[in-house]
């Protein structure tokens, strides 16, 4: 894994650990570590879906980053957005 990716990954873990609320956040780290191995398998198995075979050297950092983003997206997933629709500038004309 390239050093800068590893460092960023470690940083995000720390940020998650420190920026949230107490013990709930402590649970993220082991969850995250546990996620990375299956995520590599999942990403490898998605080659048919994405049309891209990710080489070994990119698999681990990519899985690490995806795992991190998924982990810190938990507060986002928990948001109750009711009937709010996505903002868009798509125009039919």
């Amino acid at each position, binding site marked *: 894994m*390239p050093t*800068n*990716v590893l*460092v*960023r990954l*470690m*940083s*995000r873990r*720390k*940020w998650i650990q*420190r*920026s*949230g609320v107490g013990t709930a956040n402590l649970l993220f780290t082991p969850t995250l570590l546990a996620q990375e191995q299956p995520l590599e398998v*999942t*990403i490898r198995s*998605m080659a048919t879906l*994405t049309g*891209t075979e*990710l080489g070994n050297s*990119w698999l681990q*950092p*990519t899985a690490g*980053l*995806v795992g991190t*983003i*998924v982990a*810190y*997206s938990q*507060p*986002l*997933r928990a*948001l109750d*957005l009711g009937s*709010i*629709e*996505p*903002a*868009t*500038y*798509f*125009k039919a004309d």
Partner: protein
Amino acid sequence: MSEVLISRPIHQLAPLLEKREISPVELFDEAIERIHQLQPKLNSFITITEEDGRKAAIEAESEIRKGQYRGPLHGIPISIKDLFATRGIRTTAGSKVLAEWIPDYDATAVARLHQAGMVLVGKTNMHEFAYGVTNDNPHYGPARNPWDPTRVSGGSSGGSAAAVASSQCVASLGSDTGGSIRTPAAICGVVGLKPTYGRVSRYGAIPLAWSLDHVGPLTKSVEDAAIMLAAIAGTDPKDPSASSRPIADYRKDMKGGVRGLRFGVPRQYFFEHVDPEIRKFVSAAIHRLESIGATSVEVDIPALESCAAMEAQITLAEATSYHEPYLKKQPNDYSAAVRTNLEAGRYLLATDYVKSQRARTLLQRNFNEAFERAEVIISPSLPAFPPLVGEVWVQSGEMREHVIDAFLRFNIPYDLTGFPAISLLCGFTASGLPVGLQIAGRAFDEITILRVGLAYEQSTSWNAASS
């Protein structure tokens, strides 16, 4: 004498150019001399447009002599972030992928600056594809900090901010997806304005994330930011997100002062995990605004803790979508960091992307509630000082964190909401590093943030123009 003219802001130079007391060629020569002198040390430019720039300066001189003065940007030496397409001039986006690309068209903002009579001095260094906050560019070298060349200039518009701060040009054009105008502006001690999403056309700017990308100026003064905005703002049939709302008379209407104005101070989130010296300068700025007639109110903005995830989900998905063809053809031309981000963008969930886009509306509502109590919101621009070139850790008060996390934190709420925000200088530390103050406002209310910025700037004994 040679540094006197080029170090002045646009609003001081323009009347001298109009009255023919100075010449655009003289000003251009000063800029070029300064660029050649500082390029080996600061590396602010990827391409220097000496030949084209001289032609433009000679033409501007001739037009002004004939009485065809176009306005305050006529004959002013300006640089452009290398993200913007420039006709006939190499446009790399700080990448190896586009290292040889010479566009046959100008980005709309660039075309408007040409119409206003700018003299282009060069294309500035930037973080590769604007995908980062340090401007530590592996292909063209790092754009260094003019206050301490061992440190980064911030990104992604780092070359632009460094060039303005070190008077290699008078102003620059940048872009901001997660703070890429305001972060380097704060670090280099200049003014960086991110206008409302839709106020300035994005056409011809290589996208990082279409729905978050903003185009705006980096300048030596708040008044200069207003002059630049007036030149580039407005609707554009080539950009579906460009707004047709009328453009205000920024320069005239920003001069009302702040007496009676209420500004919000969000103690949560924006004042947490901040370097104590930065906190001290921002608190002093708050007192200064109160001393010139404004009133502070505490405001609370919910859901900010989701901003980092929203930004990551949207940026990764949109950036990967744009880069997919290049990623197939030239994967090895990307740096490891940018390529990892792009690869990761393929594996995020569409539902998380859509939820992030939906949550932006919630965030806008929450900010709008705060804006019912206050006309602008004040905060530090950044929680930490720039790291040394090559370093990625910074100290944000009691928290040591990655520079990406630190520099995105106070910026991304305004990229996600699309609301306008400006960063300006609010002091220098004992070690000589500038500190940035961020002022954010309601959608399309650039006038008020410019008004507060100008009033604050005029109330201080120093400002970016004197740097």
